[in-house]
């Protein structure tokens, strides 16, 4: 039964928290980053607690790093301190009576060299002998992350890590996350942009169940639930920038409003994607040929899913759909002003 288990994390089980019943099937591969999205009360934090062992399963099984750690049916339960899981809770839970260095080095698995390296990498070496109460929110978040990573966990769990972060902290944390090696990461977030830029895969959790699991593009272009549709609001494209232009992975050339270099994520609001039957002239400098794949009503608007060199979603009024005679298969021109595109370093 154990031989078939693959992945850093394999969960197929149920757990109860008050009225909420979690019933989750989730696999995360070594080196993979999964963003866990869902409305408030969907059970995201509870799911993380199941993985840490703070919330035992009531049924099913959980394997971490190839070892069975929780299976009520066979009476198997591995205590949290014997699991290789790093947890960064939303309220961070730094130890107030210990210094920053002692916090980061708290785990018996953390070595002094690793603690020093993390202090340097996250730019908090100057705070090493301070107490957490002397840290700003961003600094405290870096300490909490360093403390979890210092133990070299096989699975890293981050609960809303970017809430109220300054830009410096955000970059340092993104850098550390990108450098995870074989570590699997589960990131709980409310922010679809963060999810799409940091994660390899999005998992949508609603009312204790996974309603969608797929690539950011998949979730954006084919949202299966109302919630997924609402958060799929933004187009996120992966590209390599060189000055005022960028080449997307799909091979489309994008003109940027600000210069950038190297791998980037381009974020395009669907409302900024204009559709035309004939090639437009005037200010938009980004114009691509596209085919309408799907029309989805979204409140008072229609979301138009496009196929083409760029997998974009446009949001237009029902009137525009009528005027442009849009239907699946229609050939259109999609135009985006360079200034409507935001560039995030990847």
């Amino acid at each position: 039964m154990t031989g078939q288990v693959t992945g850093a994390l394999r969960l197929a089980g149920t757990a109860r928290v008050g009225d909420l019943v979690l019933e989750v099937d989730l696999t995360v591969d070594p080196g993979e980053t999964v963003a866990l999205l869902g409305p408030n009360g969907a059970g995201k934090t509870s799911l993380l607690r199941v993985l840490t062992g703070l919330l035992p399963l009531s049924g099913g099984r959980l394997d971490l790093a190839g070892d069975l750690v929780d299976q009520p049916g066979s009476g198997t339960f591995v205590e949290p301190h014997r699991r290789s899981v790093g947890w960064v809770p939303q309220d961070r839970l730094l130890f107030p009576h210990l210094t920053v260095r002692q916090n980061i080095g708290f785990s018996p698995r953390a070595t002094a060299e690793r603690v020093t390296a993390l202090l340097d990498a996250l730019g908090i070496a100057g705070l090493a002998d301070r107490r957490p109460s002397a840290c700003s929110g961003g600094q405290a978040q870096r300490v909490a992350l360093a403390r979890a990573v210092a133990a070299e966990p096989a699975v890293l769990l981050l609960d809303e890590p970017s809430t109220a972060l300054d830009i410096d902290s955000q970059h340092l944390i993104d850098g550390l996350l990108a450098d995870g090696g074989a570590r699997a990461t589960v990131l709980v977030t409310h922010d679809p942009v963060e999810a799409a830029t940091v994660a390899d895969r999005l998992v949508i959790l609603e009312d204790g169940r996974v309603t969608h699991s797929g690539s950011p593009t998949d979730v954006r272009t084919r949202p299966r639930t109302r919630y997924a549709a609402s958060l799929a609001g933004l187009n996120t494209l992966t590209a390599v920038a060189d000055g005022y232009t960028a080449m997307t992975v799909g091979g489309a050339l994008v003109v940027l409003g600000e210069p950038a270099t190297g791998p980037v994520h381009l974020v395009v609001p669907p409302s900024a994607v204009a559709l035309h039957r004939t090639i437009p002239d005037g200010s938009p400098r980004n114009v691509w040929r596209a085919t309408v794949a799907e029309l989805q009503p979204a409140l008072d608007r229609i979301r138009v899913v496009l196929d083409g060199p760029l997998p974009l979603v446009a949001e237009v009024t029902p009137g525009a759909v009528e005027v442009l005679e849009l239907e699946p298969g229609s050939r259109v021109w999609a135009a985006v002003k360079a200034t409507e595109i935001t560039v995030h370093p990847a």
Partner: protein
Amino acid sequence: MRPPRPVLAVATVAVVFLTLPVIGLAQRTPWSSLGDLLGRQSVVQPLVLSLTVSVAAALVIVVLGTPLAWTLARVDIPGRRIIRALVLLPMVLPPVVGGTALLFALGRRGLVGQWLDRWFGLTLPFTTAGAVVAAVFVALPFYVIAVEGALESGSDELEQMAGTLGAGPLQVLRRITLPRLLPAMGAGVALAWARALGEFGATITFAGNLPGRTQTLPLATFLALESDPEEAIALSLVMLTVSLAVLIPMRDRWLPGRRPSR
């Protein structure tokens, strides 16, 4: 908000009531011969004994009381409410009754005392160790109540966090729970030590009144009141001074009330 006058008036009466005895004591103190009185063996000896007994009792109380408080707060043992009531019983029991009960339990012919005597040659009544036992008996609940309260109100999220970082239950206790419990333990020790220092009834009943062995300051004071009132006053002043010297520095940090903001 302006404080209501009747409240202030009653509060004033209470303060006067509490300080009046101290003033009475000061007013009757023979200040000129005080130096001589304080140097007497009959004052120094009970003072040294009282400090020894109360400090020893405080140490025993920390060792016994901390695991007890933790267990009462955290472990879902059957009959926990009954056990807690039993633990707190000495707080409401008249100390003389406590001393009598100790005598029947740990006295030479007592329930357990006879075996202590027979197997280990250990006799508690009329020894300094007996005075410590009496002090522990009456003062332990004060410590347990202070520490248990802090454990219950304290969130254990930090302990869970420590667990996910690989710290086992004992490590969590040593590195997270106990350090964070120190203020409450300090408050509990202060209360329990003060109670032990003032202990009279259980001590005289169980440990007797042997000068240099079990005659602590309260016992010496009570006896001196009949034979030598001036010496009784000197002894009382000594106790007052010792208590204030210990409690005033602790007040800001450990006693309940105005806490420094964290």
